[in-house]
């Protein structure tokens, strides 16, 4: 995974043959009264087949908005998205809608309470007009077992299931049209910890069995470490750091990444270390000048409030990119 | 604040304008036209005379043009002549408007007093006996056909018991203040009962909601007397939605007034409009309908202002 930035060529790394999804200079703005809210600003990323790209950030960092862009739920204000190398037109959009599915955080809101589970799982097939009714029924039965639920769950309604079970149903639904990429928007955060690991393992198994790629949106670095590689860190809609998992967790380059890692609870450590980030995240209605992180950055210098840093490789680590004037 | 009022007035003006066109077109679709009526009273008219008359009255022109002519005149205060009353429309309309306002305001006040008393009382013990009885009464008020309620009132108080007059606004030869009041009792009660049901339900629901709110519970915990809690803390908050709903119900109150006036032979706007439509008095019907709309719009405007005044969170 390498961000599709002009800088990439200069780093001389080997490009994956053809990324599944490539975002280039994506910007998303919303009107908020008379002002505009910039949710995502100039983000370029790509997801290769079979890999799990994690989007990490605090709430309000724009990670869900970016996920919506990839899932086709949000039109970017600027920038382009390519699917298998092609810009989205009528035909490729249809293909992308089949190949990219989404699962959500809240397992209670993700399933239509009026539909039996069988109809929920078969929905993408129905919408895409895939197969006959009989084929869809047999595929649905196959899917429900693959996510670890009994067949008789198919005739029941969502309210009869627990949160974890519902999330399994949502995953089965996402798997139905045999997608290449699943956008998973905080799929674990609404679940109990014991259930979280089950779902995490299920996601891992399915990835190996089907060669799936995930765009995994999370604020939980422990989960990200377990599942994802590479990892992209977002702050106020901008990319702070993009790097392979090992590099990012062992030697974070951006001060914000460092701070996130320090705030992460770890087994074997009694206390969290002193929280490195101070204050509240600034409003995306009124982002700081220069580097947007400078208001909370322990390393901030006068330059940071003037000049926005570019996303460039950290010294001596060509695959680890960070947007910081003073990257480690 | 000023901007808000101006914007609302602008909106109301637009609604009124649109409505005037709609009503104008609809009235044009009613049976007959002024010329037909003239021919009826003068059977000797030749077709040429009829065509000439149509041209004079502009009835051969497209409806939009006729509407614009009417509008231009109306804006200068000229609403035309009432056919059935043989007087300018305004001369007929203004006393009727006054009469209707008298009826509507009195019954509005009666029903508000009733609704608040019953609604607050019912909300104190939801599900209790009093609540059930009041709720039954409220449902009856919503469900009763107003004209039938009027009939029953007439039957009981005027025909059977002879205690109150069934129609008119005063007895010929009397016409004193007491006599006028006696004539108002039945219409006002009928109209008030018809809207009390809906209001009571709103007051009750709003009170139950606010009595559950934290600040009311805090007031209780502080040891404020129950009466004080209910009247000062809860009622004030419950007022906000209730007042809006009440003011918005002015339209249906007017519909009720039309029925009541017709039933009790009160010379108000409602009866006037009804008679005008029945008697093909186009100008009077049109102007009457427009004034009814205007009154309703004004009351809605007042509701908006009252809302802002009662709820300090709304910055106007």
């Amino acid at each position, binding site marked *: 995974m390498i961000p599709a930035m002009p800088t990439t060529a200069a780093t001389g790394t080997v490009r994956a043959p053809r990324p599944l999804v490539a975002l280039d200079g994506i910007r998303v703005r919303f009107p908020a009264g008379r002002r505009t809210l910039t949710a995502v600003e100039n983000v370029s990323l790509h997801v290769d087949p079979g890999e799990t790209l994690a989007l990490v950030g605090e709430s309000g960092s724009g990670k869900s908005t970016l996920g919506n862009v990839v899932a086709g*739920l949000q039109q970017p204000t600027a920038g382009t998205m390519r699917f298998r190398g092609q810009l989205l037109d009528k035909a490729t959009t249809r293909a992308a*809608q089949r190949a990219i599915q989404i699962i959500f955080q809240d397992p*209670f809101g993700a399933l239509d309470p009026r539909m039996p589970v069988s109809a929920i799982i078969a929905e993408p097939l129905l919408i895409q007009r895939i197969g006959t009714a009989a084929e869809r029924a047999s595929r649905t039965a196959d899917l429900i077992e693959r996510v670890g639920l009994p067949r008789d769950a198919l005739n029941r309604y969502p309210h009869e299931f627990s949160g974890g079970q519902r999330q399994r149903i949502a995953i089965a639904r996402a798997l139905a049209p045999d997608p290449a990429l699943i956008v998973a928007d905080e799929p674990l955060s609404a679940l109990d910890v014991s259930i979280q690991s089950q779902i995490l393992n299920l996601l891992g198994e399915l990835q190996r069995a089907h060669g799936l790629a995930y765009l995994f949106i999370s604020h939980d670095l422990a989960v990200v470490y377990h599942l994802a590689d590479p990892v992209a860190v977002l702050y106020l809609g901008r990319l702070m750091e993009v790097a392979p998992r090992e590099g990012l967790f062992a030697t974070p380059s951006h001060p914000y990444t460092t701070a996130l890692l320090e705030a992460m609870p770890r087994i074997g450590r009694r206390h969290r270390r002193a929280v490195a980030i101070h204050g509240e995240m600034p409003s995306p209605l009124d982002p700081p000048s220069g580097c947007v992180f400078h208001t909370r950055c322990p390393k901030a210098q006068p330059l940071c409030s003037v000049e926005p840093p570019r996303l460039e490789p950290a010294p001596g680590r060509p695959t680890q990119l960070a947007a910081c004037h003073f990257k480690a | 604040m000023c901007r808000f009022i101006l914007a609302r007035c602008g909106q109301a003006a637009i609604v009124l304008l649109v409505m005037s066109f709609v009503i104008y077109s609809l009235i044009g679709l009613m049976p007959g036209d002024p010329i037909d009526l003239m021919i009826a009273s003068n059977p000797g008219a030749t077709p040429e005379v009829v065509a000439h008359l149509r041209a004079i009255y502009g009835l051969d022109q497209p409806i939009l043009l006729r509407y614009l002519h009417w509008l231009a005149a109306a804006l200068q205060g000229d609403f035309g002549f009432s056919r059935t009353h043989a007087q300018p429309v305004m001369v007929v309309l203004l006393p009727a408007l006054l009469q209707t306002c008298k009826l509507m305001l009195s019954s509005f006040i009666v029903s508000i007093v009733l609704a608040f008393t019953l609604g607050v009382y019912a909300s104190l013990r939801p599900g209790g006996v009093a609540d059930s009885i009041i709720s039954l009464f409220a449902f009856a008020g*919503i*469900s009763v056909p107003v004209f*039938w309620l009027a009939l029953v009132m007439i039957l009981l108080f005027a*025909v059977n018991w002879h205690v109150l007059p069934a129609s008119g606004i005063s007895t010929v030869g009397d016409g004193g203040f007491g006599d006028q009041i006696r004539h108002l009792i039945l219409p006002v009660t009928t109209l008030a009962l018809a809207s009390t049901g809906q209001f009571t339900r709103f007051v009750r629901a709003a009170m139950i909601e606010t009595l559950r709110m934290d600040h009311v519970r805090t007031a209780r915990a502080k040891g404020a007397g129950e009466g004080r809690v209910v009247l000062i803390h809860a009622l004030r908050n419950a007022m906000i939605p209730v007042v809006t*709903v009440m003011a918005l119900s002015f339209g249906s109150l007017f519909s009720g007034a*039309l029925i009541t006036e017709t039933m009790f032979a009160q010379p108000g706007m409602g009866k006037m409009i009804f008679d005008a439509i029945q008697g093909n008095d186009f100008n009077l019907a049109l102007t009457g*309908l427009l004034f009814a709309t205007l009154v309703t719009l004004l009351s809605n405007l007042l509701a908006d202002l009252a809302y802002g005044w009662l709820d300090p969170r709304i910055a106007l």
Partner: protein
Amino acid sequence: MSGGTADPAATPPEAHDRRIVTAAIAPAVSPWKLRWRRFRRHRTGMGSLVVLGLLLVFVASAGPVAHFLGVDPYETDLLSQYSPPSAAHPLGTDDAGRDELVRLMLGGQISLLVGVLSTLVGSLIGLTVGVVSGYFGKRLDAVLMRFTDGMIALPLLPLLIVLGAIDLTKLGFSAEFAHSGAAGFWRVVVIVALVDWTGIARLTRAATLALRERDYVRSARASGGRPAYIMTAHVLPNVATPLIVAVTLTIGRVILFESVLSFLGFGIVAPTPSWGNMLNNAQELVTTAPALAIYPGLLIFITVIAVNFLGDGLQHAFDPRSER
């Protein structure tokens, strides 16, 4: 705007499900069964269901009863005007010497039919406006909502009277049709529907707005579901619950509208009876045959109050938070 009352649209239909979900797999009880259980406990709701059933039986027996009594409810017989109750006429006769009981049954058929049909037409209009407005939002929404606001504030009865007075021949209908009984019937159905769809539209719009952002709607959109699919597959079934209550209450209001229009002479016109037009000459009845002034209105009253209590019961059954 709805004040403190429980706005059905504000209650997520599946809110009550959250409590049971903690159990591993709850026994399979469909949402409708749960609602039926709640409704059965609502005494006035159940009572009104019985009353409405009886009313249906009453109006449906017009034919058999007329046959049994050997009377023709349309034939005027001025010799037996206002005759008192007898074996041949259990409730006596009306101003034209027609059997009052059978005419009450026939009039009920018309009044109930107008009530149901108008509500259906009006709800369909309201549903369409509400869903389109709520789903597509923006300018269309603003225009439609200003329009419904205007409609809600207007005095409806004068407007209905004008609509009732319209000469259908001026709209291009044949004179033969315009003066037929069918035209009178459909005219009432249409004009009442035209003025009473705004409540449904607002409710549907609010529910649609909330549904549009639900995750299951978004995942359907992500899978390529078009608006028409999403509306029929997700929005309509989920709007149905709050709508059933509102539609029920509309039936009551519409029956009242019909009765007053027919009473004033702008709705269903004789010889076809309706509960409203049977009171046409009520001022005369009050002195000559007071009972005749009572029956039709009483039936309207009973019907509407039963319908309203039914709506209240349904509201209770659908909204688990509602206390009683």
